[in-house]
């Protein structure tokens, strides 16, 4: 139980503190940047900035038809593991209990069988994403350690969580401790690696939408 106590105690406290510090640091740093001014007059019929930003956030959720066919796998697979992760993280009751202990809010969860099924699908989808990255010549060329580390630190909590639930490998309490420690590693890496896109994608898409909208370009 000592490893589990370490994971639930100092490791979780430290990693959550780093996560909060890093996320707030980066978000405040971006949001408090000097405002962007385009001194050119907006194109006729250009939407207001806020509308252009919101449109861009949602419209970019589906690739442009030009790229739809070639990007079919990455699009569908991306949705599978993103939704899978969201379901596993936010609808597994022990996770909800953790969130409730931190923020005081809770909601109903799903039965464990559903979570296990979704977790398995998510793990398979993540493995598919890695295989694609390793086999696609272009993607392989532009991949950096940041991409692989981000993948690994996303995959490990899923894999250890599934192993703990299924009683595969080590004893349950050890597997649970490893699961929590893998989440700790994920939390520490999150603000400083590409995982931060979970927050920044809204800002970057919005900023792109404003610039494009100002010039009358359709997204």
């Amino acid at each position, binding site marked *: *139980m000592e490893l589990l106590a370490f994971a*639930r*105690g100092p490791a979780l406290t430290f990693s959550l503190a780093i996560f909060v*510090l890093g996320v707030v*640091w980066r978000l*405040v740093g971006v949001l408090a940047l*000097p405002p962007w001014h385009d001194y050119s007059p907006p194109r006729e019929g250009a939407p207001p900035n806020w509308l252009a930003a919101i449109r861009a956030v949602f419209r970019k959720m589906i690739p442009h038809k030009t790229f739809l066919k070639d990007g079919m796998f990455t699009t569908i697979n991306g949705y599978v593991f993103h939704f899978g992760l969201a379901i596993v993280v936010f609808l597994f009751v022990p*996770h909800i209990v953790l969130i409730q202990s*931190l923020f005081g809010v809770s909601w109903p969860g799903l039965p*464990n069988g559903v979570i296990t099924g979704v977790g398995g699908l998510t793990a398979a989808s993540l493995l598919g994403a890695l295989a694609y990255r390793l086999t696609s010549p272009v993607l392989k060329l532009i991949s950096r350690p940041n991409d692989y580390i981000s993948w690994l630190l996303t995959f490990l909590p899923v894999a250890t969580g599934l192993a703990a639930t299924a009683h595969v490998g080590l004893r349950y309490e050890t597997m649970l401790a490893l699961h929590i420690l893998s989440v700790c590693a994920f939390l520490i890496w999150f603000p400083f690696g590409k995982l931060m896109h979970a927050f920044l994608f809204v800002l970057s898409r919005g900023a792109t939408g404003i610039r494009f909208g100002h010039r009358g370009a359709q997204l």
Partner: protein
Amino acid sequence: MKPDDTLAGEMQRRGVSRRAFLKYGSYIASLMALPPSAVEALAEGLAAARRQSVIWLSFQECTGCTESLTRSYSPTLENLIFDFISLDYHETLMAVSGEAAEEARRAAMAANKGKYIVVVDGSVPMKDGGVYATIGGKTNHQILEDTVKDAFAVVAVGTCAAFGGLPKANPNPTGAVAISTLVAGKPMINISGCPPIPEAMTGALAYILSFGKLPELDHLSRPKAFFGETIHDRCYRRPYYERGEFANAFDDAGARQGHCLFKVGCKGPVTYNSCATTKWNGGVSFPIQSGHGCLGCSEPEFWDQGGFYRPLSTPLGAMGPALAGAALAGAALGVGAALSARSHQKHYLASLDKEKEKE
């Protein structure tokens, strides 16, 4: 019963048939999850067993382990004492006291040198020379060393003896340690629990008597027969856990309907013991059946796991101050980074203006 008598002989004298004895062997064997082929061997071993000398030492403890043993369902304490073992020294149960009691211990040790079993409940204080618990002017550590040196095996009964238990809980003012840290080179079993299940104590002793060796143990030296699975894995409320049906409080609808107690702090998922199968008080019930979550009392450091009612998936300590501090520090760093960027931009624009002026 004379010391040289076998248990079978004694049973025969009391009118217990061989068939009844085999049935009893089957009970012990099933309790310890032994294969059917072991039933006869266990019964034969028990039948041929001679009276086993047991010296029971009580150190930093609450006597709850003895209380638990006296509620043993089968074999009963009377059986255990008069049929299986010769309890030559037990401060709570023996009639004599003072020097006479100590003399009984020394006599039993001399008469059964290398053969007696030492059962210990309670941890041993080591701080300040062990002065926090003494008996007859000797520290617990001295008594343990003196008694264990000629023992056949040592059985640490209860979580205090097995892992330090409550006396070792933070801040551990007496420097309490587990028996295993002080006993080297002797066969050793931990029967943890606060208190341990009586059948686990008597079952382990019966196994030693029958086979003359220790039962199969886990990595914490506990008999796998009793500590091989978690409470959660054998809990009758497990289906509720799987379905996501939980009690959110001890008096809500979920609690009344017998839903899983995970959310109110049950430590069953990480606690290895046979409470859910052997149960207590002759198989009547166990804590979860009575509506309270498992405390995890048979695991090391169970007292220092952040509170009995804190769910297993939550942090051990209060996170608020750490997270608030981190958020403030993050905001300060973010503002600093943005101000730096603004300053850089200002200088850049100023330099552009200067260049324009030059042109």
